[in-house]
């Protein structure tokens, strides 16, 4: 192979990569534009929450607790860790798992040119992520600590110095990550367990951090961290290398460190970054071409499983096939099974946080409403997966048409599977909240009546949402699959199903919360007296039953004819 790199080829490949990520300039419909605008608003909202969190923490550390240097160490630890994790994901996805490697190798470009082009894209991505996190950290720190103008110039220099390290670490770690992924490729149950553990772990970490921030905001009157917490932060800041060096460069001169200390910190950072970058360069350039070739060659590597010829009932075999097609896909396992198992953990933490915060402001009466809200939201997330149940058949969809099994039976099998998983998740979530909030020790925030009614209403809504999700896919499936038959991305039915679920959750939750401490009166007739939760549950139960009946009818009425009309 000719190893000479043509910059023209590299430029073309980078342009291709950018176009693949951000789309061509083809005119989009108003609907697409609205979708894009919504996506941008959602991203901006999440970013605004992050920036607000940083601001509160900065104020707490710098103004109230007089620990500016400790804040910088914590902030740099957070920045470098987050950007490294994001960069690893990005490098693995773009350099090693990208489906276009085989395609690119057919063109007159060599492995080094592909590597360089993709690395340029990954580096640009890394720069953007770094800046998105570091700019608010530095700006907020500067504003909160009333730093002089010089600080902002130093901050720009530190940003430039800080950007290469996460990228270099990511390049170095991407190869073992890839090896690990290849190792567990066909260990479906192990992967599922790991995914569940990862989801629960990340969620618990996130909720604990959020709870800490909210706790601080609530107790703001105290004005500062407790002496124990301050001591923990000081000890952490003393030993958190190499993050401490970044903090020293950034604000050491503010906190009494000498120019020599700052100079040494720069030297250490430079040496570490250079050493890791050189190692990453050699490892990547020497292994990249081999690894993508192995990836192409082993893409079709599959497992072998000897089973006897077992005869199952028609319904049993439909269920069996549906379940195994989900279990044997990383994407589907993550989206559905892992989420379903992890949901009770998420419900517990969300409920705990919301109940604690809400209880202190409007009283314990809102806890049942909050619980209902949280359980239905997570159910909606889980069952939204059912809205791709037909689309996921992909190019094998014709199979559902040629087999001598009615479409009703086939759809019923899907419904039973998704409803069973959704139901299991609702049962577990209810048991968890009952154990956590229904005991004497927890102050009986939920009574047996609350728990029973919450379960019944949530279950009816879960079943209704499952029916609606499947019905939306029967109406307009999109057989957009790649590779061995996996969907490219979530379709519009999934978004619709999620939105409906969240709206129902919000309406039911807010209704229960409001009328837990306010009466509902129409003219002179009091429909819900204060404190009469029985009436609230009766009304919501009735509405849920109607919604369920309507969705079951909507799914099954005239199903044979509607399904027959689907043309693959």
């Amino acid at each position: 192979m000719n190893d000479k790199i043509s910059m023209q080829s590299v430029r073309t490949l980078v342009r291709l990569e950018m176009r693949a990520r951000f789309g061509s300039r083809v005119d989009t419909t108003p609907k697409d534009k609205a979708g894009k605008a919504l996506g941008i608003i959602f991203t901006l909202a999440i970013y605004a929450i992050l920036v607000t969190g940083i601001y509160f923490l900065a104020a707490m550390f710098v103004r109230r607790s007089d620990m500016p240097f400790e804040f910088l160490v914590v902030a740099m630890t957070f920045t470098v860790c987050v950007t490294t994790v994001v960069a690893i994901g990005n490098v693995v996805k773009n350099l090693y798992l990208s489906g276009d490697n085989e395609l690119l190798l057919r063109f007159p470009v060599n492995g080094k040119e592909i590597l360089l082009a993709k690395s340029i894209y990954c580096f640009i991505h890394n720069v953007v992520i770094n800046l998105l996190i570091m700019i608010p950290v530095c700006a907020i720190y500067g504003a909160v600590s009333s730093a002089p103008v010089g600080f902002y110039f130093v901050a720009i220099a530190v940003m430039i110095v800080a950007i290469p390290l996460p990228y270099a670490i990511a390049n170095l770690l991407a190869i073992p990550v890839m090896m690990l992924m290849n190792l567990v490729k066909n260990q479906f149950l192990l992967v599922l367990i790991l995914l569940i553990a990862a989801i629960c772990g990340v969620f618990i970490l996130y909720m604990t951090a959020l709870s800490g921030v909210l706790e601080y905001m609530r107790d703001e009157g105290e004005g500062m961290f407790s002496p124990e917490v301050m001591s923990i932060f000081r000890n952490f800041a003393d030993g958190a290398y190499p993050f401490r060096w970044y903090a020293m460069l950034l604000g050491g001169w503010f906190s009494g460190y000498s120019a020599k200390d700052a100079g040494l910190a720069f030297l250490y950072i430079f040496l570490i970054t250079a050493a890791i970058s050189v190692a990453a360069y050699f490892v990547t350039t020497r292994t990249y071409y081999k690894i993508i070739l192995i990836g192409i060659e082993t893409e079709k590597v599959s497992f072998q499983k000897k089973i006897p010829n077992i005869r199952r009932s028609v319904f049993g075999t439909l269920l069996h096939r549906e379940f195994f097609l989900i279990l044997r896909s990383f994407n589907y396992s993550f989206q559905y099974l892992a989420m379903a198992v992890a949901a009770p953990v998420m419900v517990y933490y969300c409920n705990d946080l919301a109940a604690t915060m809400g209880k202190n402001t409007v009283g314990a009466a809102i806890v049942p409403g909050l619980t209902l809200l949280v359980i239905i939201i997570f159910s909606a997330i889980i069952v939204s997966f059912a809205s791709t149940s037909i689309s996921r058949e992909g190019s094998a969809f014709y199979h559902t048409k040629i087999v001598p099994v009615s479409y009703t039976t086939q759809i019923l099998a899907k419904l039973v599977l998704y409803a069973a998983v959704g139901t299991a998740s609702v049962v577990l979530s209810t048991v968890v909240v009952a154990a956590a909030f229904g005991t004497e020790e927890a102050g009986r925030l939920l009574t047996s009546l609350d728990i029973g009614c919450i379960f019944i209403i949530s279950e009816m809504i879960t079943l209704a949402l499952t029916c609606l999700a499947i019905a939306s896919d029967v109406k307009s499936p999109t057989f957009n699959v790649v590779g061995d038959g996996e969907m490219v991305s979530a379709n519009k039915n999934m978004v619709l199903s999620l939105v409906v679920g969240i709206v129902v959750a919000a309406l039911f939750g807010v209704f229960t919360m409001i009328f837990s401490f306010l009466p509902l009166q129409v003219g002179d007739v009091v429909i819900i007296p204060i404190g009469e939760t029985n009436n609230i549950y009766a009304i919501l139960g009735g509405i849920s039953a109607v919604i369920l009946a309507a969705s079951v009818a909507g799914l099954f009425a005239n199903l044979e004819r509607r399904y027959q009309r689907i043309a693959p």
Partner: protein
Amino acid sequence: MLKVTNLKKVYPKSDRVAVDDISFELRPGEIFGFLGQNGAGKSTTIKCLTGILPFEGGSIEVCGYDIQKEPIKAKMNMGYVPDNHSVYEKLTGREYVNYVADLYRVSKEDRTERLERYLDLFKLRFAIDKQIKAYSHGMKQKICIIAALIHEPKLWVLDEPMMGLDPQSTAEIIAYMREHCAKGNTVFFSSHNLDLVKRLCHRVAIINEGHLIDCFDLAGNEENKANLEERFFKITGTYEKRLFEDYVAQEQAEMRPDMPVEEAPASTEDEQ
């Protein structure tokens, strides 16, 4: 076995009639070839008669059961091999065949006996317990064929079955088509391969732009066999005297420019 009467199919959001007023009937024990250019309506007809596509006019009966009124009974008597051999790639070959056998209510004993037979016949024993995603093009085609035959259908429908297959696999499939037919069953397949159709089919139909233009016997009718290419080219509007004469001439061994006369095959059998 199969009766198609005045079949009409229009795709949604399309003005063009994909299949218009097509009628034909298949008898038990025959192999029926379905010819036409790309886009003539072959696959659309096949998709209608297998129940994949709804249609706007006419009727289709499989073993006396109307595909629209009694679809389950009609499908129970049919086995279908698609042109793209799409299957559930995450299942193993055995899981897939068992899944299909369950749907067609095949007993454990029957499926075991048949599967063993087909695995030997199609030389797929080495791969049956592997995930289908690791199969080659030909192996996928074979697993589709095994799955389509696991319930021993009376009507076996194949859409361009020899596409991309190696000569050995093609020969195996041809042999099994004949065997299936000898048991009183019917084989209906579409193809672009006129030679294959000539050698294999009892009858043939030629479709052009959605219309069935011609349907005639091949078995026992040497004249029809000899004229098949000419009729096909004329019907499909691709007849050019010069090209056709070249084509016919090249079929004669001594005229083939790519082969010395003494090495020419006795017949065109081996080309498949």
